[in-house]
């Protein structure tokens, strides 16, 4: 009887440690070569100051950490167990170690990935997600360009600008699409918790000082609405936006840059949540105050349950780890658990404010031209998507896929799913038709990662058999 934790970001690491402290045996499965997730990215073997949880993870004899191990499918088995199908070895290599792991309690903590809305030229080399630029800077010390523009919405753009400066890039500007009034309303909408506001205000002041020192302009209500170049980005067009993100006519300007970093928030990596049969709400895993999902024995923590940063993820992880241990009959420290739950409540307010302050507004749909790709894998343009709705009468995400192939490529709609759904809904609205029948269909992916056919044909070994447990 053991707890299996999927994902070793802030949420998964804290879940593993909390469950092990509570007395449970833990297997921590993570697709990255080293623990830390998106937040604690560092050069291989990096010695940057890491928090205590890393030390505990290493020391705790009840935790086995499987790095380079990807959960590609999950199924329920009799007895209330969950069977995970895992491949371990270098990313995407054939012939990796193939195994199944059975979990009596499961903590899902697979995090989130960047969202980017399409605009003409967004598929040119040199256009990066903000997260990718951040990851390359933090873990490889690579700057994605010499002269870089950072744009999108949300406070995440600021650490990205800082990382770019740290690896020697010139940051031509940070463009926040939302209006200051939108952001203020969002941040003030909730009763202020002086505790995290103080911490976050100090962080913000730090960024402001840094941008000023490097003479990096910060422009609210502005966006990159097109990127230009033949083989690579050479320039971009920016525009002032109204509160709905419609470009203000005549406000367009052209800038020469060799890279653009774009971030319009994050999308949770929901595959294991959906595979386990857990209910979702508003595109996130639905959890109670113990991080329990709708399926007994399955807990979710971190950005799967809402976007609120590393502190919220870590606190949720601790709560989930305690709950998973208790599910197996152990008795974790109630004081520690109560403290973590208080932190979760505080940071959830922060997360709600964040979502209200930095919405993605529908005006982005006017940036895309008829021939702008919505689905990059299958090369489906805005025009083809519109045709599927207007001429072929697609009324659901499934029929949309079959009619124009949107979301059917290797990324399985991770990049285009939400954008295609919102565009199709807009086309339907124009025709007075109801929105798509099955908007969540885009997130349903039975396989969480591609598997080579030869590897499918190779019978896996049971982890339990190898471990002799």
């Amino acid at each position, binding site marked *: 009887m053991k707890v299996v934790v999927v994902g070793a970001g802030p949420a998964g690491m804290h879940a593993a440690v909390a469950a092990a402290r509570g007395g449970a045996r833990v297997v921590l499965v993570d697709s990255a070569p080293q623990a830390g997730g998106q937040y604690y990215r560092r050069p291989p073997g990096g010695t940057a100051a890491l928090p205590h949880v890393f030390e505990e993870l290493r020391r705790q004899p009840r935790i086995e950490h499987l790095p380079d191990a990807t959960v590609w499918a999950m199924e329920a088995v009799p007895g209330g167990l969950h069977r995970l199908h895992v491949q371990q070895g270098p990313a*995407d290599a054939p012939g990796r170690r193939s195994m199944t792991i059975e979990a009596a309690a499961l903590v899902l903590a697979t995090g989130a990935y960047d969202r980017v809305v399409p605009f003409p030229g967004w598929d040119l080399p040199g256009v990066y997600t903000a997260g990718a630029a951040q990851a390359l800077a933090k873990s490889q010390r690579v700057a994605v360009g010499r002269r870089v523009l950072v744009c999108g919405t949300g406070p995440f753009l600021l650490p990205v600008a800082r990382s770019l400066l740290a690896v020697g890039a010139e940051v031509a500007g940070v463009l926040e699409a939302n209006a200051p009034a939108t952001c203020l309303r969002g941040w003030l909408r909730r009763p202020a918790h002086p505790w995290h506001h103080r911490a976050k205000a100090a962080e913000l002041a730090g960024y402001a000082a840094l941008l000023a020192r490097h003479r990096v302009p910060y422009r609210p209500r502005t966006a990159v609405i097109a990127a230009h170049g033949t083989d690579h980005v050479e320039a971009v067009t920016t525009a002032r936006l109204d509160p709905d993100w419609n470009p203000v006519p005549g406000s367009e300007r052209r800038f020469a840059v060799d890279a653009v970093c774009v971030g319009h928030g994050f999308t949770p990596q929901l595959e294991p949540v959906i595979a386990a049969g857990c209910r979702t709400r508003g595109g996130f895993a639905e959890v109670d105050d113990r991080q329990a999902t709708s399926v007994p024995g399955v807990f979710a923590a971190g950005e799967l349950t809402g976007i609120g940063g590393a502190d919220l993820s870590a606190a949720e992880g601790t709560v989930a780890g305690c709950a998973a241990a208790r599910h197996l009959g152990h008795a974790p420290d109630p004081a520690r658990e109560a403290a973590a739950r208080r932190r979760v409540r505080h940071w959830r307010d922060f997360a709600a404010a964040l979502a209200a302050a930095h919405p993605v507004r529908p005006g982005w749909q006017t940036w895309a031209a008829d021939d702008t790709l919505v689905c990059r894998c299958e090369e489906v343009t805005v025009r083809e998507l519109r045709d599927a709705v207007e001429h072929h009468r697609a009324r659901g995400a499934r029929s949309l896929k079959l009619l124009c192939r949107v979301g059917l490529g*290797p990324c399985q709609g991770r990049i285009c799913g939400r954008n295609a759904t919102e565009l199709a809904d807009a086309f339907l609205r124009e025709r007075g038709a109801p929105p798509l029948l099955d908007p969540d269909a885009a997130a349903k992916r039975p396989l969480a990662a591609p598997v080579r056919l030869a590897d499918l044909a190779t019978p896996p070994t049971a982890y339990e058999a190898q471990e002799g447990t």
Partner: protein
Amino acid sequence: MGVCFDCLVVVNGVPDIRACQRVVEPGDTIRFQWGAELPAAQPQKREAAGADHPGADHPGGERPDPAGPDPARPEPHARPPRSDEQSGGSRSAEGEAW
């Protein structure tokens, strides 16, 4: 990162490797991948299966197998690997170490 599959490269003759996820090893042979490709050299223990594959040596510019399971659409400039790009095939059994 790791979700868009736009950065697929061919590593030691094996296609469909996400460049953003794979850690480089000394001696790796890496090249761009143009659309859908079949493995140039199979990992050792699957050599036989690879030779049997109907598309294993498809002519240049042609779709390896239009009804095949690979959802990626081959680009018009898809081409078979040159022989010099197949060097390093002996290393492609890297998965065996695990």
